[in-house]
């Protein structure tokens, strides 16, 4: 999720009013990327200075299609000595007019089946007949045709350069590129190359967080054709997959958004589907190969999401667990038994729900059919609760006579934040996007750019954070103030406002921290409070539709737990001012994983509440290894029980602490953050500290 970008964007768009401003903002982003690439600002600055002659931004006086054509004419082409062709020119930029649509997966199965020629055909004049005249009646089509010309131009430039290069298989790869002009992809390697090429185009045109989609399904035909005709063996295919993944891992510094590792490169594998004969689980050789490959390569990125159901083969779950046990934090399990139904309930066609993928982290969406911005902003549940207690007078608090009254006041504040968010959403302008419009249904049918509402689905997805802190705060107040009458609201609030600093507040601080039951426990009261809050938020959004007719969906997993915690005061769950909010759906102090799974399965994900709901487990190394069989049983039982999604961090506090003190000793230590995996050493200190403290809690070495 592109957090920094979000903060920087208002500045950016103001600066766009003059071309100098646009240039300097783009340069600032470039410098940030280069700093990651070279590891220091000095090296980055000197590299930038030496290469300034390569710097280029398209002129915004041209339409977007022409700009794309100009960009693809200008990008520097890099041909490696062997293997897949994939390059990004960090100095060439497309002008940004409004927010660039990001965080989605295009449908690569269409890319494999179609050619530039076939895309061109979409825009021929219907009356003149196919192949005679281009239809230039609308700006949309002009843009589309220009963008297509740009793609064709770049393909020819690559072919020419390839032929003159020392690439080991230049003839073969030149043929793969030639085929992109007028043929569907036929072979497995060719298909992988074609996916990489179109993926490259998205990155080069400023799209971030580009998902890869259901690659085992997309590649199935090419793979089996090659295998059955004896062109490749399984081993060949496996080697190609590894090489493909390594290629995707290149330009890590370019692709990462808010944090290193935050690339959105998620590969979706497996998946439940049903037809008139019954329910099935889709998987094939490639499903296993992709997981085996990420395990063997031990890379944080790209990452895998495995769609699971009760019918998922046991050895696939076991392989996934073995992979997770290596510490790479992937695959994430997404429970099709729940996710698909919730998508249909929200309004997706059954076929699209069956074929779902996720945005950068966990947010389910229809592949290649949506403009869906699934992580457009977030709501903190805790902020309005704190605001209520910051703003209201002592006199007001004195007159709150019941928990019900307090809950209602909280809801009033929560609704204010929801309304503010809606106002923010309505003000967003989107960058015209001929490239995405080419691939996303139904832009071509509607003759409408995706940024204008051309897509089939146009929903906005938001994330929410801090539900655990809020539920625990409300429950603590309910117990201590309204049931046990140990304190008055004002007394408790005074302690909170003091950030629990005074010595005499230490006992109450411990009480608040250890409130039991708490969020994550299978307790009726806790579940009721949790479900009531999220139902209320859903009601706040119920009547909203955006200018394209899309609705709002939200989920309980958000990347903002550190940033959203940093800006607010202490809270009634014993969280001190500035400390992080709780992570996803987790219960770190408790090793009874069944408890948090039972809890998660009783949360209400219906209506609009399905935009990513991850149970986040912390495991000590070897826990899975020593109990593979039983842990596999646990996963199956959990699928039946009905969790939404689940991810696991296999870490031990000792290694994390050592790595923080001595990064060189642990260069390859990978951890799970948000919905992606990253090198521990690449993370900002506050993320490192949070992981250390969660690991310590999980090992029982510190209390909550």
């Amino acid at each position, binding site marked *: 999720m592109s957090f920094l970008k979000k903060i920087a964007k208002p500045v950016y768009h103001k600066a766009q009013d003059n071309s100098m401003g646009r240039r300097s903002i783009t340069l600032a982003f470039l410098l940030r990327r280069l700093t990651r690439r070279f590891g220091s600002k000095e090296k980055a600055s000197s590299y930038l200075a030496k290469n300034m002659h390569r710097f280029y931004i398209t002129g915004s006086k041209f339409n977007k299609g022409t700009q794309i054509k100009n960009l693809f004419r200008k990008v520097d082409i890099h041909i490696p000595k062997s293997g897949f062709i994939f390059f990004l020119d960090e100095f060439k930029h497309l002008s940004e007019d409004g927010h660039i649509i990001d965080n989605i997966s295009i449908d690569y199965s269409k890319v494999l089946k179609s050619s530039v020629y076939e895309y061109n055909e979409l825009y021929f004049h219907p009356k003149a007949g196919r192949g005679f005249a281009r239809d230039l009646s609308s700006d949309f089509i002009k843009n589309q045709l220009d963008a297509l010309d740009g793609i064709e131009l770049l393909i020819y430039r690559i072919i020419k350069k390839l032929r003159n290069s020392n690439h080991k298989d230049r003839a073969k790869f030149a043929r793969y590129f030639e085929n992109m002009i007028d043929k569907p992809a036929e072979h497995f390697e060719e298909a992988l190359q074609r996916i990489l090429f179109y993926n490259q185009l998205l990155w080069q045109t400023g799209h971030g967080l580009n998902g890869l989609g259901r690659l085992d399904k997309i590649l199935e035909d090419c793979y089996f054709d090659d295998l059955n005709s004896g062109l490749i063996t399984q081993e060949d295919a496996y080697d190609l997959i590894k090489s493909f993944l390594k290629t995707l891992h290149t330009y890590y510094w370019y692709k990462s958004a808010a944090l290193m590792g935050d690339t959105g490169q998620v590969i979706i594998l497996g998946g439940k589907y049903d037809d008139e004969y019954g329910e099935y689980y889709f998987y094939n050789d490639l499903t296993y190969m992709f997981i085996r490959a990420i395990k063997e390569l031990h890379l944080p990125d790209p990452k895998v999401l495995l769609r699971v159901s009760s019918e998922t083969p046991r050895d696939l779950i076991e392989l996934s667990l073995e992979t997770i046990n290596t510490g790479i934090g992937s695959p994430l399990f997404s429970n099709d038994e729940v996710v698909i139904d919730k998508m249909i309930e929200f309004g997706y066609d059954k076929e699209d729900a069956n074929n779902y993928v996720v945005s950068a982290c966990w947010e389910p969406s229809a592949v290649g059919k949506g403009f869906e911005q699934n992580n457009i902003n977030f709501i903190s549940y805790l902020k309005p609760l704190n605001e209520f207690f910051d703003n209201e007078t002592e006199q007001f608090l004195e007159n709150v006579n019941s928990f019900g009254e307090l809950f209602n006041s909280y809801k009033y504040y929560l609704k204010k934040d929801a309304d503010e968010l809606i106002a923010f959403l309505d003000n967003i302008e989107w960058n015209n996007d001929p490239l995405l419009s080419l691939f996303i249904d139904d832009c071509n049918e509607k003759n409408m750019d995706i940024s204008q509402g051309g897509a089939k689905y146009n929903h906005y997805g938001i994330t929410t954070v801090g539900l655990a802190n809020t539920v625990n705060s409300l429950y603590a107040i309910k117990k201590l103030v309204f049931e046990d009458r140990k304190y008055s609201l004002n007394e408790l609030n005074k302690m909170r406002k003091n950030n629990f600093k005074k010595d005499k507040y230490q006992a109450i601080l411990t009480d608040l921290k250890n409130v039991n039951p708490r969020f994550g426990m299978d307790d009726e009261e806790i579940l009721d409070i949790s479900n009531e809050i999220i139902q209320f938020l859903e009601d706040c959004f119920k009547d909203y539709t955006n200018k394209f007719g899309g609705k709002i969906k939200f989920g309980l997993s958000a990347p903002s737990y550190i940033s959203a915690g940093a800006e607010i005061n202490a809270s009634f769950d014993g969280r001190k001012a500035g400390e992080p909010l709780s992570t996803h759906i987790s219960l770190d102090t408790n090793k009874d994983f069944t408890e948090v799974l*039972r809890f998660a399965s009783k949360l209400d994900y219906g209506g609009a509440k399905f935009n990513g709901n991850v149970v986040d487990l912390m495991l000590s190394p070897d826990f899975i290894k*020593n*109990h593979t069989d039983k842990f596999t*049983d*646990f996963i199956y*039982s959990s699928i039946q029980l009905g969790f939404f999604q689940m991810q696991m961090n296999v870490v031990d506090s000792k290694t994390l602490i050592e790595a923080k003190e001595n990064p060189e000793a642990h260069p390859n230590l990978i951890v799970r953050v948000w919905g992606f995996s990253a090198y521990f050493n690449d993370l900002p200190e506050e993320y490192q500290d949070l992981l250390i403290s969660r690991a310590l809690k999980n090992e029982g070495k510190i209390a909550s």
Partner: protein
Amino acid sequence: MTVRITNIQHFSLDDGPGIRTTVFLKGCNLTCPWCCNPENISFEIENYTHNSQNESFGYDISLKDLEKEILKDEAFYVENNGGVTFSGGEPLLQIRELEPLLKSLKSKNINICFETSLSAPSNLLEIAIQYIDEIFIDMKVLDKKEAKNVLNLDIDLYYENLELINSSNLDKKNITFRIPLNNEYTLKEENIKDILNCIEKYADFNVEIFKTHNLAESKCKSLNQEFTIFSPVDDEALNEVLEKIQELNSNAKIISL
């Protein structure tokens, strides 16, 4: 009807087949110096302070509430015979109180496992046997005098109970000896000889051996009890014992608890 327990542990993976809920019953008449659950020895509820908070080991729970807690994880028992494990303390000592619960769980097809030292009157064990699907039997010090002195265990009663189990309808593959090993007591040459004899006699029981650990130190501190630190057992000694046992019972294995 209530029983006295210290803890209910869901998602137990080392206390029998499948995913289990382990109930730790309070009270035991043995005095094993390496005991890792010293808070389960006394039959009384014990208060202590921790971080200047008053806390206590032990509470009484009604059978109804206990059953509710056990059934919470029913969904996780389905795969591979998961269920409930009664541990302690010595669970047989509260068997009369537990019996109605066992009956009810049995009727719901919940797999029932006991972890016992067999230091309980045989008539209590007889009650338990009707309900037990799986049993872990401690085997520690077997010399009559040593057992009495070190463990406060009546070894004749132990063997009598063992015979009772052996002659019951319990499937032998569901009976497991668990042998804690430490240099100070159980690993002594004479004792190992006795252990091997016993294993030979009941050759169709499973055998699991493990090193005792020093994890109970902080609990002992809370209880104001002395804790003797045991010397670390080296893997060689452990493997040596394993090999000897495997000559009699090839399925014997090392576990870590």
